[in-house]
């Protein structure tokens, strides 16, 4: 049955595929964190230029890299978005398939720990955050399962309240960034942790005893749950806090509040860089790639007053932006 269907379907589609014209639309894949920004640029680009509006897929950073590095040609995407830097292994996969890459850093994204307006204020250090969420913690020279139930158990100055944190699942890029920056950062400064083997990847384990609740990929859902439960804290991207500032407030980390200026200046510790990567072999073949990169890196888009800032992007410092813009528009190749 399946064979019959496949042959029929194949016979039908091969005919149509032969008639399909060369692609005139830019295709972008990659991170769901960069997706809101990439789509905003795509829409603006489609409206103001003579090219058709690029198609932007939200595949996640890793999935995007895989598609992007699969090869050169119409069937492969022209750009990929990433909420982390391209890994060496991914770069090698790309190079093996004859792809030259231009890397563009577009700005920052802050990861916030927020709760409902009515809830208790939280002022955490990364260490305390690690102690609240890690699976195992060091105590008296031994690794023990995380015993903390209340914030005040960790430090008496913290609120006398049950620890309850809603966060993204391991498939999410936000989770990757959170464990890498916040958990690893807290672990690094914790006395006695490194001796017990708690370093790098070992610090990434999040407790599974119901204190940390995986709330799914949808950040709007976490926002709604926080509203309903003022005792809970949520972990998500800065733009959701920005959009819901009338309902939520962000916790200070290492004494810095998660505010636009603090993240832009690099004072707020839990922030990451956002990137996109361009396939050089497609420039000039697929129309509009160069112009799209120009649009993305124009002051009107990623500058401090640009429309991407309205969407929640945190811009690079002025000097870095100018340098990055020049590098991007010159399509400087990436080397690793």
């Amino acid at each position: 049955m399946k064979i019959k269907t496949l042959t029929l379907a194949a016979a039908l589609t091969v005919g149509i595929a032969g008639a399909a014209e060369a692609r005139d639309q830019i295709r972008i894949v990659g991170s769901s964190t960069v997706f809101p920004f990439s789509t905003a640029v795509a829409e603006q680009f489609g409206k103001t230029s003579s090219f058709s509006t690029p198609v932007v897929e939200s595949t996640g950073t890793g999935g995007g890299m895989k598609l992007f590095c699969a090869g050169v040609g119409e069937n492969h995407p022209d750009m990929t978005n990433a909420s982390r830097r391209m890994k060496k292994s991914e770069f090698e996969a790309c190079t093996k398939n004859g792809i030259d890459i231009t890397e563009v850093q577009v700005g920052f994204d802050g990861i916030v720990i927020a709760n409902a307006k009515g809830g208790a204020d939280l002022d955490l250090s990364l260490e305390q955050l690690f102690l609240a969420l890690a699976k195992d913690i060091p105590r008296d020279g031994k690794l023990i399962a995380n015993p903390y139930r209340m914030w005040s158990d960790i430090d008496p100055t913290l609120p006398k309240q049950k620890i309850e944190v809603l966060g993204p699942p391991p498939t999410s890029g936000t989770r990757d960034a959170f464990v890498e920056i916040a958990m690893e950062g807290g672990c690094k400064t914790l006395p006695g942790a490194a001796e017990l083997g708690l370093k790098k990847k070992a610090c990434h384990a999040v407790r599974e005893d119901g204190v940390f609740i995986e709330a799914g990929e949808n950040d709007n859902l976490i926002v709604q749950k926080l509203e309903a439960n003022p005792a809970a804290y949520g972990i998500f991207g800065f733009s959701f806090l920005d959009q819901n500032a009338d309902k939520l407030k962000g916790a200070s980390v290492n004494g810095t509040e998660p505010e636009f200026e603090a993240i832009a200046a690099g004072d707020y510790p839990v922030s990451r860089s956002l990137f996109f990567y361009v396939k050089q072999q497609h420039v000039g073949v697929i129309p509009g790639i160069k112009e799209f990169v120009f649009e993305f890196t124009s002051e009107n888009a990623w500058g401090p007053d640009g429309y991407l800032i309205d969407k929640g992007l945190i811009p690079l410092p002025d000097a870095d932006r100018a340098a990055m813009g020049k590098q991007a528009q010159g399509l400087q190749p990436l080397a690793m």
Partner: protein
Amino acid sequence: MTDFPADRSITRKPDFSDAHLRRRYRAEARFRMYGIAAIFAALAMLAVLLGSIVSTGSSAFTQTEMALDIHLDAALIDPDGTRDPAILAKANYRKIVRDAMRAQFPDVSGRRNQRSLFKIISSGSDFDLRQFVEANTELIGTTQTIWFKTSADIDQLAKGAIPRDVPEGDRRVKDAQIGWFDTLDEDGRIRRSFNTTFFTSGDSREPEQAGVWGAVVGTALTLAVTLVLSFPIGVMAAVYLEEFAPKNRWTDLIEVNINNLAAVPSIVFGLLGLAVFLNFFGLPRSAPLVGGLVLALMTLPTVIIAGRAALQSVPRSIREAALGVGASPLQTVSHHVLPLAMPGILTGTIIGMARALGETAPLLMIGMVAFIVDIPRGFTDAATVLPVQVFLWADAPERAFVERTSAAIIVLLAFLIIMNLAAVLLRRKFERRW
């Protein structure tokens, strides 16, 4: 007649006592009540679901608009007076709209304040103005009062989704903007009108510009491919297996496989589609054609199983009578059995199509979970479908997308109802009783 042994010890006398009878009636009544309660529970859940969707989503069907006196300056729009579409398309409409805003609020000065002022009007208003001018070239040179969409934040403020009583720093809309909005409102320059954009345009990152039409067209194209492939193939397979195929180990094997395929998770079909249609045949990503092919593979087992059940329910006597008056097996099937089985087959097809209508997982693999602004014009254009649109909007940070998510669900449900209605009408047309 058989004679029972007249052994008193094993004959039981029915209990006709009142107490026992009452117990039986009570049990009967209880059982009915459970049934009614189950129905009411299901209805209540449905009502809660629909109620919450409609109450959140209905406000998306209206859009707040503001009136501006626009001077359609001929020197700016069409300096040579040629009315050439290429020149009309290139004019600086942004400047015209902004000049009108400045004229409306002459005392707003300074770059920061003006930027804040321009944020109350939709950022797409220059395109709206361009369309207006292109449709009414005779008005160039005059001053017209034109209604523009407000920005999504102002729209949410007008609808009450952004509260005014929280501190200014915690609000998307600033005090000055509320002041300007109220001034416009007092002048009668604010109205709520039907949100046609929602039904006529494709996706957008600006909530007030976003619409479902692209997704509706994408859904229609995808389902058309699914139907055209899965219905004839499914019916032919069902007819052959039920009416002609010999009963042997091979047909048993095929039957078991079809039943198993019907239970395979849909993402697996997406992976199959990625491997076969995209990587092997080189079909374009995100195309409704590929989406339809994948969904057709997913729907086929359902259609075949339902088709076979419908064919089985046609009485043997019909076949025997047809064969008896000299019809060939082909004539028997095509003239008598198939028309009689058609209502059942259609029901099965609709169930399969309804499942296909709600799928996002297999489409993720073939690139249909994407931001697509342009309305697809054919089977190989990039397109997305309604459930994907719901998924993408549900994930968007802007608050105005919350109501649009629910509104898109309403559209999806309407699409489903229209499909089901078509099936009911078709079924009634074919329905026979014996």
